[in-house]
């Protein structure tokens, strides 16, 4: 049975060989170990032998031809007159395209297969020679790096990424990851993580200030650090242990946000009159040592508007909605590490000056952390004002159990159209968050309309 005689793999590194000469001719009889051809490889010229007795039936590669290892160079058979047409057809198919040859060679001669596959990769990096012989093709970039669809950019070998095994041992190597602001032992880091102790708040007692296990354990026992110490310039991520207040805020707001179906109503108030009113008031009242802020005016307007529309001064209950008999107005106050909402009780019944004085006192007590629980629990409606911080418009999260909160934006001058003409006016946007279980859209709008009356006609606040 005739078979292909293939270019031998003379050494592990050999990819192909050049046929220097045939020592046998077609039709010659062969015995095992007969030298049939001479081949030049990457290392040396070598004799190519057969290891079967038979006949050289057909030469498939001519002298001077370079042939990949594992590819047929001849057909040999046991008898002189074997039918080799099928093998010839197979060989013709191989010559037609590289793919079948590669596929056939693959199980036997890996380098040959790799070589056949190589042009696919080379095409990505090396421009094909241009058809115009007059144009010198641009120099092919060195095929040192390629980009693959997988996103790999780096050196390759035979079309495959060359890497240093880092992928296998856990992600891309980034030296920055290894830099630590705080020296600490592995054990100290583990314990710090378990105990929730931020390492950069721990003084290290080890060599070079290394934080050790004992340091972390000592820090975990110590009282929480003072707020004043907390501020640090931004750099790497840091862990800031949650204070009780922060935890309370988180849980209350999350509860509120997830519990109440809310919607938002925004109104834009004309404040020219309010600004003029305050200027006049402060000029005339300064002798009394009183100073009224826009916030005071807004708070009083909200309180009075709630008195007019008491359906909005309410809270949801499964069996019934509570409409509060008193307007107890919560005022959001920012603290260094959180916020608190002290309450002005019966705010609608207060005079402007009373309200201003009470507000001032409450804010001071809040900042000094001197509020008693009854001073900040049970607001029937709340106001959060970020206007003084330049926020034009925002929405606030309900402060339970109250069904409404008003987010007050900045009072600012802007172009306005008055009586068909463009002018400059003082404007302020407020957004009411409504618990839809209690306050419907029209009801909320009624409240905002009442509020508009008081803001835009501030003299009403003092009647």
């Amino acid at each position, binding site marked *: 049975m005739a078979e292909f005689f293939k270019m031998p793999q003379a050494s592990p590194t050999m990819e192909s060989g050049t046929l220097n000469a045939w020592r046998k001719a077609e039709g010659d009889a062969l015995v095992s170990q007969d030298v049939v051809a001479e081949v030049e490889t990457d290392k040396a010229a070598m004799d190519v032998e057969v290891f079967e007795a038979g006949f050289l039936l057909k030469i498939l590669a001519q002298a001077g031809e370079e042939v990949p290892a594992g590819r047929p160079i001849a057909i040999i058979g046991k008898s002189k007159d074997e039918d080799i047409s099928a093998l010839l057809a197979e060989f013709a198919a191989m010559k037609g395209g590289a793919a079948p040859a590669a596929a056939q060679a693959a199980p036997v001669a890996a380098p040959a297969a790799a070589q056949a596959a190589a042009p696919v990769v080379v095409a990505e990096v090396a421009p094909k020679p241009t058809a115009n012989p007059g144009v010198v093709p641009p120099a092919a970039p060195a095929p040192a790096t390629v980009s693959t669809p997988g996103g790999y950019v780096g050196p390759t070998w035979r079309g495959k990424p060359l890497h240093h095994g880092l992928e296998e041992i856990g992600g891309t190597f980034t030296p920055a990851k290894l830099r630590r602001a705080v020296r600490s032992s592995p*054990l*100290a880091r583990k314990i710090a993580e378990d105990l929730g102790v931020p390492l950069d708040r721990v003084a290290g007692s080890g*060599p070079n200030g*290394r934080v050790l296990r004992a340091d972390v354990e000592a820090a975990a026992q110590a009282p929480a650090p003072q707020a004043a110490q907390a501020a640090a310039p931004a750099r790497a991520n840091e862990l800031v242990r949650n204070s009780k207040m922060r935890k309370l805020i988180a849980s209350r707001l999350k509860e509120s946000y997830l519990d109440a179906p809310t919607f938002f109503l925004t109104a834009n108030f004309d404040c020219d009159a309010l600004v003029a009113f305050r200027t006049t008031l402060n000029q005339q009242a300064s002798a009394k040592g009183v100073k009224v802020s826009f916030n005071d005016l807004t708070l009083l307007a909200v309180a009075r508007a709630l008195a007019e529309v008491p359906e909005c001064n309410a809270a949801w209950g499964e069996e019934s909605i509570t409409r509060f008999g008193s307007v107890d107005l919560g005022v959001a106050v920012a603290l260094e590490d959180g916020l608190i909402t002290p309450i002005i009780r019966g705010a609608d019944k207060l005079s402007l000056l009373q309200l201003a004085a009470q507000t001032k006192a409450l804010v001071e007590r809040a900042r000094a952390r001197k509020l008693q629980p009854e001073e900040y629990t049970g607001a029937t409606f709340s106001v959060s004002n970020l206007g003084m911080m330049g926020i034009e418009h925002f929405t606030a999260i309900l402060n339970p159990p109250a069904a409404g909160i008003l987010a007050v934006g900045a009072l600012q001058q802007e172009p306005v159209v008055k009586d068909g003409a463009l002018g400059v006016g003082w404007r302020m946007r407020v957004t009411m968050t409504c618990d839809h279980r209690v306050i419907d859209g029209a009801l909320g709008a009624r409240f905002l309309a009442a509020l508009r009356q008081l803001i835009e006609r501030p003299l009403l606040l003092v009647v």
Partner: protein
Amino acid sequence: MALIPIREALRAAMREEMQRDPSVFLMGEEVAQYDGAYKVSQGMLAEFGPDRIVDTPISECGFAGLGIGAAMVGMRPIIEFMTWNFSLVAYDQIVNSAAKIYQMSGGQYKVPIVFRGPNGAAENLASQHSTSVESLYAHFPGLKVVTYATAYDAKGLLKSAIRDDSPVCFLESEMTYGMKGEVPDEEYLIPIGKADIKAEGSDVTLVTWGKQVFTCQAAVETLKSQGVSAELLDLRTIRPLDREALFNSVAKTGRCVVVQEGYPFSGVGAEIVAQLQEHCFDLLDAPVLRITNRDVPQPYATNLEKLVMPSAERVVTAARRVLGLER
């Protein structure tokens, strides 16, 4: 229970095994008529005769190879090197034949052989007679490397080594042959591959083996007087390493000093440090330190030699450093 020197414990191990198994024989330079260069085999020629207690020419490669061939066909040779320094002319026999035959024969040929003799430095023997060879043999899968500190361990481990079906390099110490220890009258074996806690402690683990156990014992006492509780782990077997005992001790203390005779570079201590950082990274509270011979060929002069060897003072300093008590 008898109080006997280590050389007698070793002799007792060999005698018991030779009485038990006729395929065991002892071969080496001066082991028979001379009674052993260090008198370990004293009297054994009279008991077992010249076919089983065999004097050799100075031909380590020749008789190490002979032992391997005999082991392949079912004998259990004990090949004594007068010192392990001389084993280096038989190195090819031990690492290319003894260590590999079982594997490269597909498990057909076992090589139950013990190579034994004194290892490491004695005193004032200069560079060629002071080598610690454990890392040279522990490098090779296929070899077991066993050593001891006490007479009790010496006897129990040597008996196990002689019964082992794999080649064992059994490392002794010229300095401790005369050191006495309690050995039970009844027969016992100590399994190969099991470390032993020679002193329990909680602050730092001292890992060592062979005669450096005594250096570390002195260090443990000093540390105790300074309020430091050191655990002393005697590996006893270097390969296969008792990783369980090693990791458990370091897990307990979080700190470790490896005390190793011989050169630091690619020493057994380096392997232990590597294993600890691979497997115990998050259990360590400080880098693992090594106390080894200084990285020079052994000098002859007494003052220089003392400088080269591990000492209790060096071990104490290292322990205090990993504890952050010293910089």
